């Protein structure tokens, strides 16, 4: 039910005349806030209007207008649509803006990313360093005038491929014969690489000083990763330890930074779909869902009824599969190697078999299209979905529960070990199961329904302690709820066409902006797309739940034992493909 607060519209212009103007560009919405009043307006938004969750912060480089824009998307954890506000600055270095970290702590890493890729300085940011690239990297790659080593053309398709497409390795066209770009007259021999003193200085800053009466011990700095079996990929974490207690922590990422945003801005709208598969590579269906929903919003096209149901079925299957892996991997990290994860992978294989039969690939499904899906679910695959949903998966989830949940060692290991409380979770913009395990019933499928989720009867799984046990159990709750949705969807699914549009490889997207979000198994997966009417997007940004959730890692872990750190990290359920993009 929509409450009064949910539907209340906010007229910022009336509240802050002369400080805020409505964004009147065609296809755009929201407000443009004066740079000087940004903090004032944002504080009012949080405190007066109840926008407690700053979901997305990103930059856009409007080079033709000689402007840089930073876009903020704020939401209420009680539900309802969001509010977008922007701030514009002249595109003359140094570009400076006030930081939002004091109001919404969840902006910390996102602002660092903007500094890294756009070169916008946030003046009172507590720890403004590069985040995805390394210190010393030349240039700000997401600026429109940045050209990388293998740059060929502004937009795909490239003209060199057809009709006279003699095969040439991209290396042959670059003066350095590789994917490289150096400043003029660069001399590699005399170059002194920058060390990581900034990282250790900021680690020093957050590390708790010795309190009085405490035994004087050495603090040791430990680097975990990027090659570490339990960091779920190539994440590196620098930790200061006092004995076994973590006193300070800084994640270092970017080891899998694959330039999704930059490549996406060169791709046509259609070509981005397979790239989204590779964001959160456990849940390509959920990623497809998010992106396609966003572009459909921009194109203002309907989705075929049957396709909506197929989408929901695929997304929920994907969620079950993701949570199964979560359980298996968590227990792997806790030291019980292999057996539970082998059982989890068994069910996952059966689900992937369905994805393979439906879309053609196990992991990188590339199944959604604008207006629908690629092809109908084959009959035998539909039967298999029904078999799994009705017979196998409920029994197997029960078995998993019997297998693990009363295991005394596991219970002792998980109960009472803190992850996050509700207040911190919201402050750090944490979404997904971690937020719900802290007692906030915030699920986008309910809070801001998309697709046909409003037609299903299901509960938002929520638990209240915010400790590891709750974070673990909520995954089981969510799997059960997903099964409920699946049962209803399989019953209600109508016959009919699977796409409202004709299949076409060049879609027309009117100019404008759109922010679409879905509840991916890891949290709020958002896409911010700006179109200027051309075949490729002007700006394509992914608001990755894993990345934003990592902001809270420092708070989660400080004061914990190093042995618990691995499990606490596992609770966040991060995927590096999504963190680094």
């Amino acid at each position, binding site marked *: 039910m929509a409450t009064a607060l949910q539907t209340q519209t906010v007229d910022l212009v009336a509240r802050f005349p002369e400080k805020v103007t409505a964004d009147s560009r065609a296809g755009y919405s929201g407000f443009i806030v004066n740079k000087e009043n940004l903090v004032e307006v944002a504080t009012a938004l949080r405190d007066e209007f109840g926008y407690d969750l700053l979901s997305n912060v990103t930059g856009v480089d409007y080079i033709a207008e000689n402007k840089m824009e930073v876009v903020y998307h704020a939401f209420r954890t009680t539900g309802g649509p969001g509010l977008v506000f922007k701030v514009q600055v002249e595109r003359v270095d140094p570009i400076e803006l006030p930081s939002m970290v004091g109001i919404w702590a969840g902006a910390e890493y996102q602002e660092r990313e903007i500094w890294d890729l756009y070169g916008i300085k946030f003046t009172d940011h507590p720890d403004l360093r590069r985040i995805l690239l390394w210190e010393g990297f030349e240039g700000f790659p997401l600026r429109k005038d940045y050209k990388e080593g293998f740059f060929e053309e502004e937009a795909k*398709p490239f003209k060199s491929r057809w*009709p006279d*497409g*003699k095969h040439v390795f991209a290396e042959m066209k670059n003066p350095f014969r590789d994917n490289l770009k150096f400043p003029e007259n660069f001399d590699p021999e005399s170059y002194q690489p920058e060390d990581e003193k900034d990282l250790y200085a900021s680690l020093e800053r957050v590390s708790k000083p010795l309190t009085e009466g405490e035994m004087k011990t050495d603090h040791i700095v430990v680097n975990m990763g990027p090659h570490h079996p339990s960091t779920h990929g190539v994440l590196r974490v620098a930790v200061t330890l006092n004995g076994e207690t973590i006193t300070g922590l800084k994640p270092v990422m970017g080891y899998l930074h694959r330039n999704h945003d930059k490549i996406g801005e060169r791709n046509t709208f259609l070509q981005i779909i397979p790239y989204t598969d590779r964001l959160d590579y456990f849940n390509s269906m959920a990623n497809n869902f998010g992106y396609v929903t966003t572009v459909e919003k921009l194109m203002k096209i309907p989705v075929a009824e049957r396709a909506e149901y197929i989408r929901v079925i695929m997304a929920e299957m994907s969620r079950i599969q993701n949570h199964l892996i979560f359980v298996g991997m968590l227990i792997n990290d806790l030291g019980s190697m292999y057996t539970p994860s082998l*059982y989890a992978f068994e069910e996952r294989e059966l689900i992937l078999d369905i994805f393979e039969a439906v879309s053609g690939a196990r992991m990188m499904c590339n199944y959604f299209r604008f207006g629908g899906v690629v092809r109908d679910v084959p009959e035998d695959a539909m039967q298999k979905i029904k078999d799994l949903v009705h017979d196998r998966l409920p029994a197997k989830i029960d078995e998993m529960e019997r297998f693990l949940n009363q295991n*005394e060692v596991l219970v002792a290991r998980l109960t009472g070990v803190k992850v996050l409380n509700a207040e911190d979770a919201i402050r750090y913009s944490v979404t997904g199961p971690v937020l719900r395990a802290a007692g906030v019933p915030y699920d986008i499928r309910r809070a801001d329904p998309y697709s046909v989720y409003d037609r299903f009867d299901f509960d938002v799984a929520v638990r209240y302690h915010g400790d590891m046990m709750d974070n673990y159990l909520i995954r089981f709750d969510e799997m059960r709820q997903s099964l409920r949705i699946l049962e209803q969807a399989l019953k209600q699914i109508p016959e009919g066409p699977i796409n409202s549009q004709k*299949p076409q490889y060049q879609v027309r997207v009117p100019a404008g902006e759109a922010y679409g979000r879905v509840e991916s198994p890891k949290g709020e997966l958002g896409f911010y797309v700006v179109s200027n009417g051309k075949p490729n997007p002007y700006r394509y940004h992914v608001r990755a739940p894993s990345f934003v959730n990592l902001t809270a890692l420092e708070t989660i872990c400080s004061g914990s034992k190093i042995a618990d750190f691995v499990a606490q990290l596992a609770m966040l359920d991060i995927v590096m493909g999504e963190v680094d993009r």
Partner: protein
Amino acid sequence: MYGKGILKGLGVTLKRFTDTYLEDISWWLRGKKRYYTEEGVAHRSSKNTRGIFTVQYPEEQLIQPEEFRYVPFLVYEEGADGKKEPRCTSCGICAKVCPPQCIWIVRTNNPQTGKPVPEPAEFYIDMDICMNCGFCAEYCPFDAIKMDHDFDIASYGRNVYNLEKLLKPASYYAEIRPLNYNREEEARKAKEAAKAAKADAAAPAAS
């Protein structure tokens, strides 16, 4: 009782362990072969699978669904004298739609007139860039490029496939994707029939 949960869990592993042998016995009693047969593999991938789950590639293989896609290949029709006639007209749609831009096509030009001939002179796909998305096959208007089922293509060097290596006969395509092949053939025949009917209808009017 402390330790009950652990025992319960061990019970689950024990059951999984014994399931393998129970299943073996039940297959043996029914006089069927559980291993190295298609039936056995199909059962191990079904909802009723229990016990051992392994499909022992390369001795036995998973059953590929029709839509399975790996890397692209070009379809050719076998000509009368064994000549390979590629369906490709080098229209370039696959090269345009390819997300990582790994397709290179050289169009054939008639040496006399300089006009393009619907046939590729050269065709390259860099298999080490290809992301197996299947867009080329999906948007090809001539059903000339299709996604292969063959995944055993690892090699000791970089894989840039040329026209010769890409071409596979239409019969191979019909074998790996029978449903798609038949549907496309029917559509083609229907189209030709419609064209002929139109020509018939137009002929008397013209004369």
